[in-house]
């Protein structure tokens, strides 16, 4: 297997309004193998979107990526790129799908043109050729009557159709990595299933690696190869999907599972985690989950590193040292 994306110690900061800076993403590391799907899971506000935007240097100012962070695409150091070289990476090596299809398309341009634009930004092809490729893409993402939809404006399409257009845009320059940031959150349940189906199909036919960002563990099973759970700007647990579902180890992950009704496995009490993710300004010292953690103990006052649970399973909790028992 070859590694297509490697993120190391990613830190993103914003001014806190009082002369200092806050770090809503604080030391995130993960990697993606060719053709692999990694799910990045966490509650609202934990830093998922910022993490994905940083991959293409899309953090809106005054936010910035701190030095010491690394994003590598093969042997390209993405965070060192500027101007034209950065532009050539965007869309070409990584394609992005955003959460809200109602606002992610430009309202004044035809959808066919918005796709063709992504093609012509990276390939030296004629308008006619770009249009015919756009048509193929619309068909590929399952838009009926694709020929006439090329000339539709976004407001003439439903939410599900718009998200398919968004996917077509992300695929326009044939990237090897697809980043989907909560691609179904804004959609009806039935439409959600259709969009996920499209993504599954494309992943299989195109052999793309996918970073699937979601707060919904329900769509992870059977779709992702590995799962990284994020909390308060950090990855707190990472494991192959099957193992994580069989044996979630971090108290936060266990809490997430407890709040998802399950059809299989041992019947559990539904105990959603009390409280919500605190904003970056209110993160405690030591383990950041400590105030909400039912298993917190003395050592939680020290910040834990990612510790091995199994060879390919790690978590950011001191309990890993004692196999789950409190020391």
């Amino acid at each position, binding site marked *: 297997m070859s590694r297509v994306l490697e993120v190391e110690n990613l830190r993103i900061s914003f001014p806190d309004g009082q002369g200092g800076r806050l770090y809503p993403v604080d030391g995130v590391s993960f990697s993606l193998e060719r053709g692999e799907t990694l799910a990045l899971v966490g509650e609202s506000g934990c830093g998922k979107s910022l993490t994905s935007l940083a991959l*293409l240097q899309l953090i809106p100012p005054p936010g910035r990526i701190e030095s010491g962070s690394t994003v590598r695409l093969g042997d390209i150091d993405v965070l060192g790129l500027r101007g034209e070289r950065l532009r050539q990476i965007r869309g*070409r090596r990584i*394609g*992005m799908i955003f959460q809200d299809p109602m606002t992610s398309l430009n309202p004044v341009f035809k959808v066919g043109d918005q796709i063709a634009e992504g093609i012509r*930004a990276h390939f030296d092809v004629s308008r006619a050729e770009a249009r015919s490729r756009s048509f193929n893409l619309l068909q590929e993402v399952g838009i009926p009557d694709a020929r006439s939809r090329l000339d539709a404006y976004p407001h003439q399409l439903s939410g599900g159709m718009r998200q398919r257009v968004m996917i077509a845009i992300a695929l326009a320059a044939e990237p090897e990595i697809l980043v989907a940031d909560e691609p179904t959150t804004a959609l009806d349940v039935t439409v959600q299933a259709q969009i996920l189906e499209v993504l599954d199909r494309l992943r299989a036919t195109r052999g793309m690696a996918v970073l699937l960002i979601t707060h919904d563990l329900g769509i992870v099973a059977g779709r992702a190869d590995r799962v990284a759970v994020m909390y308060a700007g950090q990855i707190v647990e990472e494991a192959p999907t099957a193992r994580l579902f069989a044996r979630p180890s971090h108290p936060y992950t266990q809490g997430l599972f407890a709040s998802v009704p399950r059809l299989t496995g041992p019947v559990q009490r539904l105990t959603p985690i009390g409280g919500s993710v605190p904003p970056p300004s209110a993160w405690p010292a030591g383990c950041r989950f400590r105030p909400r953690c039912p298993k917190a103990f003395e050592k939680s006052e020290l910040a834990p590193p990612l510790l091995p649970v199994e060879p390919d399973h790690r978590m950011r909790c001191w309990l890993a040292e004692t196999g789950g028992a409190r020391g």
Partner: protein
Amino acid sequence: MRRWLLRRTAQAAVTLAIAITLLFVLMRAAPGDPLSRLQGDRLLSREEIASLRERYGLDQPLLTQFGAFVGGLARGDLGVSIEYGRPVTSLLAERLPATLQLGGAVILLNFTLGLWLGVRQAVRRGSREDRWLTVASLGGYATPSFWLGLVLAWLVGVKWGLLPPAGHSDPLLDSGAGFLERTVDLLRHLALPVLTLSAVTIATTMRHQRNAMLDVLRDPFMLTARAKGLSERAVTWRHAWRNALFPVVTLFGLWLPILVTGSVFVEAVFAWPGLGSLAAAAVGHRDYPLLMGAALLTAVLVVAASLLTDLVYALLDPRVRLS
């Protein structure tokens, strides 16, 4: 779209009719009439005044006067100016070109330089350039145009003698002068009045454009545009600016009539032979037919500008055009 256009045009016509009626009533309700002023000056005898009154129809009931006015309007006849003794239409037509030159130049400057500066400010928000342009535009906005006009006319026009301080063309210009020479002469005369009027208007245009751009730059589709690998230029001008144009189109609809008639001060300062100074004189003379003609022209411009604004809006925004 066609039905929308028809409906919108019909609306405009009704608006115009109401405006004409109101104008007529207001004008007659104002105290004083043109002939009593002549009488006060003892220039004419009581009998002469009465005969003049009869001649201009001022002795008729209001409704009859209105009927005569509307009838004339339908024939493209706005009556005869009391002060100048010439048809109002020919007086207006005589002054229109100078006004259009001045207003047109100001609008052109606003919608090129003003928009460009506003977009730059938004793209470089918080930079030194942005802050300086903000200060400059506030200064321009706060400067009364008649004062700025006087200062420019005196300093640039009289003291330094760089540009003509007044007038529309050089009276000494050889009548055989070529097109180029005439154009240069016109531009030199236009420079100071245009600068004066632009200082205030461009400040407003810049501000509107900057804010509109800042709003659009926050929209999620801007992220999409960048993420697909477009150049910053395409991101700014194709994706952002195209959407940030709507608020300034509205502004254009507001500028148009103001620039045509609202430049009274500036026309006075620079002795610019436009409609503004004509209308000002008509007010002083209580020259009803002329005043009515000028007001009517303004009303037509206001209605036309709003129609034009809606039309441009519709052409720019598929959500309006296709609904």
